[in-house]
Each structure stands twice: as C-alpha cells, then as structure tokens.
C-alpha cells in the first residue's frame, strides 16, 4: 500500500517488476510449509482408502492395492450399530449450541463491559482476563465434582454448560465493541427514546456482527476439538463427541486385552477423515466473514 502511494511517476512499472520478481528462498520455504500442512491430510486420505490387509503391508504415503475408501466409510458408519453417526450428531450439537451460545453470551457481555459504566466493571474484566490464564484442563476435575453435586454428570448438559463460557471471546468482544460501536450512536438512540435492549438488538448487534463471527469460529473449533472435558464428564458412549469416541476406538485397537477386537484401524482413520470434513467446510464458508470482520475492526475509526 505504501509503495503504491509513494512516488507516483514510475510507480506502475516498479510495482509490476516487484510482482514479477520471485524469491527462490521464499518459494522453497512456502513449499516446505505447504507440504508440512498437507502431508498429514494426504496420509490420512491415502490410508483411509486402504483395506485392513493393505494398511500395514503397503507404503504409507501412497494408496493401497485397491481403493477401499467407500467400503471403509460404509463400515465406519455401521460399526457398533452406527454409533459413529451418533457421535457425529453429538459433536454437531455441542459445537452449534455451545459455540453459538458462547458467541452470543460473549457479545452481550463484551458489549456491556465496553459500553456501560457500573461499579465493579474493572474487577469483572480483570477476572475475565484471569480466567483466560487458567487452562480448561485444570478446571475439568472441579467442574466434574460440581456437576456431580448438581446431578448432571453423564448428560449433555455437562458438556454444553462449560462450552457456553468463553472468557477469551468475551475479552475479544469487549475490545471490539469499544471501537466498533460509537458512543454517539448510542446516545442519539437514547435521545430518540429507544430502550437499552432495543439499542443492543437493532444497532449494536449489527455493528458487532463481524466480531461475532470471529468469536463463533474460534468457539466452533474449540468445541469441535474439545476432548478433555467430555472425556471426564461423560461415561456413556451414546453421549460421546467424535474426539472421545474415536480415541476409544483407537484404544480398543491398540490393546490385545480388549478381547476379540475388530480390525478397527481403518475405521479410526476413516472416522478421523470424516470428522474433519465439516470443519474444513465451516472454514471455507466462514473465512470470508472472518477476514472482512478483522479488517472492519481495524479501519472503523
């Protein structure tokens, strides 16, 4: 941007030349990064398409003798009475309700912290910052004991309720709301006689939409990949999300003491492949909002 703005004469040519010039070192680094990012995915795809017999007897980074992906998908979806689909549904439930709720609560809370002056506001915000620094893993066991008292252990609530709290999202929305919602708009709305909730709903929420999507994406990824909390609070496989379920299959395949066992390695690979597809789609669809959201935030004032 600055290069184009500076020195009008000849700017066209130099910009063009700059675009043409390639840095071999950077290209190599980019290629290495590309391989680093894509290789595991390719490995997953290649191995998920192998039959059980080929899995450990053919080269790891290429496809096996025959293309078995669709048969594997069929097996994965029907194994143990189709529990994979149930796990998939659970993960969708936890992510959509958990992440949606977390983003909404973070937006409401962040807006309130940014725009209202009330006693204890600073203390509350400091506590939010403190909460970010405590890893969720450390809270899992006390959370369990608490839920056990309330009697919601081993129910979906035990996963959903903690997912609704996103201190990081709240922090992000507070910072975002401070800039994105000008005080003058709020004041003029108040003068026009709008109630506080109406102001939030009709004005602030719209201005905050890009921030909302950002928090939603973060929360979506976090709840989709959430492992430790559901591992602790859920015992019944019927309520497991994909992460815990797939790990259970993995543990089962990795132990001779687990009994007759089945050749579950392909199911784990295929299941892992299937479980990342929705995240890839969510990113492709939502990244537009994300980019524009961040840009909007930075140029607003």
């Amino acid at each position, binding site marked *: 941007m600055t290069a184009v703005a500076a020195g009008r004469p000849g700017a066209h040519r130099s910009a063009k030349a700059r675009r043409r010039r390639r840095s071999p070192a950077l290209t190599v680094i980019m290629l290495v990064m590309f391989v680093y990012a894509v290789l595991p995915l390719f490995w997953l795809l290649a191995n998920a398409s192998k039959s059980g017999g080929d899995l450990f007897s053919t080269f790891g980074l290429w496809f096996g003798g025959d293309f078995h992906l669709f048969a594997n998908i069929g097996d994965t979806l029907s194994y143990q009475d189709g529990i994979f689909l149930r796990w998939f549904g659970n993960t969708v439930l936890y992510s959509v309700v958990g992440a949606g709720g977390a983003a909404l609560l973070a937006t409401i809370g962040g807006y309130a912290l940014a725009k209202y002056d009330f006693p204890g506001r600073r203390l509350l915000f*400091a506590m939010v910052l403190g909460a970010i620094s405590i890893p969720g893993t450390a809270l*899992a066991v006390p959370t369990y004991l608490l839920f056990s008292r309330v009697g919601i252990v081993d129910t979906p609530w035990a996963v959903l309720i903690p997912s609704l709290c996103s201190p990081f999202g709240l922090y992000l929305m507070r910072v975002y709301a401070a800039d994105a919602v000008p005080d003058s708009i709020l004041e003029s709305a108040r003068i026009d006689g709008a109630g506080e909730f109406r102001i939030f709903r009709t004005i602030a929420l719209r201005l905050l939409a890009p921030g909302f999507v950002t928090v939603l994406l973060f929360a979506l990824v976090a709840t989709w990949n959430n492992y430790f909390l559901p591992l602790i609070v859920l015992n019944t496989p019927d309520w497991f999300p994909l992460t815990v379920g797939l790990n259970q299959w993995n*543990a089962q*395949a990795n132990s*001779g*003491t687990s009994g007759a*066992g089945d050749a579950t390695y392909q199911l784990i690979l295929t299941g892992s492949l299937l479980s990342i597809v929705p995240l890839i789609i969510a990113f492709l669809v939502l990244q537009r909002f994300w980019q524009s959201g961040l840009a909007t935030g930075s140029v607003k004032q």
Partner: protein
Amino acid sequence: MRTLPSRVVITGAAAALSLSLASCGGGSGGGASDAAPAAAAPSASAAVQDALTKPAELTFWTWVTGIEKTVARFEAKYPNIKVNVVNAGQSADQYTKLQTAIKAGSGAPDVAQVEYFALPQFALSKQVVNLADYGAGALKDKFAASAWAQVAINGGVYGIPQDTGPMAMFYRKDIFDKLKIEPPKTWAEFVEAAKKVKADNPDNFLTTVDPGDAGGVDSMIWQAGGTPFKTSGESNVSVSLATDPGVKQWVSTWSTLLGEKLVDPQPGWTDEWWKGMGSGKYAVWLTGAWAPNGIVNSIPKTRGKWAVAPMPQYDAAQPMNAENGGSSVAVIPQSKNIPAAVAFAEWLNSDPEAVKSLNEEAGLFPATKALLDDPAFRDAPLDFFGGQKINQVLSDASAAVRPGWQYLPFQVYANSVFKDTVGQAIDGGGDLNAALKAWQDRITAFGTEQGFTLSSGG
C-alpha cells in the same frame, strides 16, 4: 489492561495449581474411606444366590469388545436382572473416571473391569468390595493359581479373574526357517538368535521392546524371577528395583541386547511397529497369550507364518513364566445392590457357559482351570498359525507362572513415570541400572507423599 491487579493473577495461578494437584491425587491414599458394610459370610453368600431371582438393574463398565454377547446370555438365564454394558474408557482412562465417581459419591457403576496391575490400588483404598465377605473365596479352586493370586490381596478377594495373559514367544516361523534358527529355549540362545538376524540384514531385529510399556518390562522382570515390589499390611511398601536379583538378571540380558542394538526400542501398536511385524523386520513378539487377536486382525496377510513357543528361560532346568496383562471384574461399594453385582461378576467369570463365551465370542484367554484343561480348547488347531495347536503352549505357559509377584498399591502412577526413567534408557541406550534406580526414586517419593511407608528392601 495495565491496571490489572496482580492479586487476581496470583489467586488464579494458585487455584490452577491446587486443582491440578487434586486431579493427580489419584485417590490411592492409604486412608480408608467408605468401607462396604461387611456381612457374615454364610448369610451373605446366600443373599448372593438369592439376588439372582430378584429384579435388579446393574451397570457394568468394561472395554472388552464382544462381551455384550456373554452378558446377553446372563440376561437370558436370569431375566430379572438387567445389565447395562458401558465402555467408559480403557484402562487408565476408566480408572480415573472410576475414582472420580467414587470420590464424588455417585455415578460409579455397580461392576467394573479392573486390570490385575491396578487392583491392589483399588483394594487397599477400599474402592472395591471385598468379595470374600460375600463368599467368593469358595471360587478359588475354579481358577488358575496365577489368576487367583492376583485378586487375593491382603487376605481378601477383591475381584473375580476374567482373563489372563501368560507370556509366550510369538515368532515368524518363515523367518526362523530361512535363517535356520531354532526357537531359543534360553535367553543365551535368544541373544545368539538376535545376532543371526542382525548378521543376515542389519536393518532387521529379532524383536522390539516398547520404551513406554511398563507392564511389558514388569512381566519380563517377573519372568526373570524378580519381585521388586512388595506390600505388607496396608501401608508398608518395599521397592527394590536397584537390588533385586531377578531385576539384575533381566538387566544383564537386556543390556546386551540393547547395547549391541540387537533389539529395536520401538513403541508397540504404532503404524511403524505393525508394518515391521508384517514385513518381517521383526521376527518375535514376547507378550501375553492374548496376542493372537491383535496379529490376526491387524496383519492378516501374515497368515500361516506365525508360531508360538514358550518363553526363553534363564535357567532351563527351572522354567519360570509370568503374566502380562489380564483383568478381573470388581464390585464397587457405591452399588445399591451389591449381592446382585457379586452374583453377576461370579457368573460372568466362572460359569462354564460364560467362560466359553468369553473365550469364543469376546476372544479372551481363559482364567479358569476347567477351560484351560479342556481338550477341546487345548487341541484346537489354528489355521492362522499354520495349524499349530497354540492353546497347548499357552495353557502350559499359564501353569508355569511363578507365584509371588506383587504390584504396587499405586502401580498406575508407577507405570506412568516408567517412560521418563527406564524408558529413556531403553530408547537412548543409557545405563539400565541407573534408570531403574531413578524409577525407584520416583516411586518412593510418590508413595511417601501418599502416606505409605517406603523401604528399599532387599
């Protein structure tokens, strides 16, 4: 942001610290918590028989695949009792959940699978019911001595043996034949065989040793005549990993094997390991009798190439074997219907129909004498093993298990730090003696913290 009071951060950090301590506590403390109400044995065992006819609902935590079929047989036979089979996680995952639920006072199952190595921990902290109070002592003669010894702890009976894993040597017959190696009968021959494999192709190894598998090394020390862990009473623990003669015997052989790079320190069950097992990079797997399932399911293309032989011996005149893996079924004091839970655990693991189903439908290696000695079981040839009657070798391996082995009352923790100590030496070619001493120090420090009296007995 700069005005953030430091107090808040400090409180937060302290809270996180105390919480993480709470989560590692593991609940193996020596203190007795909620003990089961003990009843007089005769009336209690009558209550157990009685419970089979009354309506009841039980929850059973297990990770054995295929066990639902055996449980269905129980429900068919005793239609008043409904059993919910739940896979709550495997091994350490399940133990964490079980202990948390027991501490929380609700949410624990009635009956749970507990591996032998973890049972003393649950038994000493009274987190499982002493089944002797319900007349389970009468079942002793039904089980292989090696199995019963692992549930009879401190004068009580804390689980019903479900399956066992007497050690054996699974080997690639095709490779042995090609290199003209006889299955080694002694560890000295084993070292020679390892040299032959190495001489034939420097990329190949006779076998692997998993630097993260404490259980595997425990079993090999057991097989070498070692008893490095001893518990007497409820709180006296002695650890002698640095001095026990059996441990020394294991160290002398495995220092040679590892020092001369004759075995591969490769974690088991990984992609690389299975590939090596399939391709012939590795020729031997020293493990429990449950191994055939894994081989048959994971590397089906090696059909017909495997065979089984007894473990190599240190002293061929006095053959000794050990157990590797295996589980018992325990009853949790929280159960609202302990007699029914005991009756279910007993039937599941000792009734001839159930035991046969566990073996054939769930693939477990048996723990009962009746099945281990059953000619139909012993003499069944297995196609996958080139028609070898492998159960003969494995049943004899069970009978040869050396009595007297004990696990620590906090073996789950001890196994979890094995990787950082002995595992490092196995992986990096360090001094095994020093590493065993380091493991002993970690165990001693933890045990003392937990309130046990530790000694480094001889």
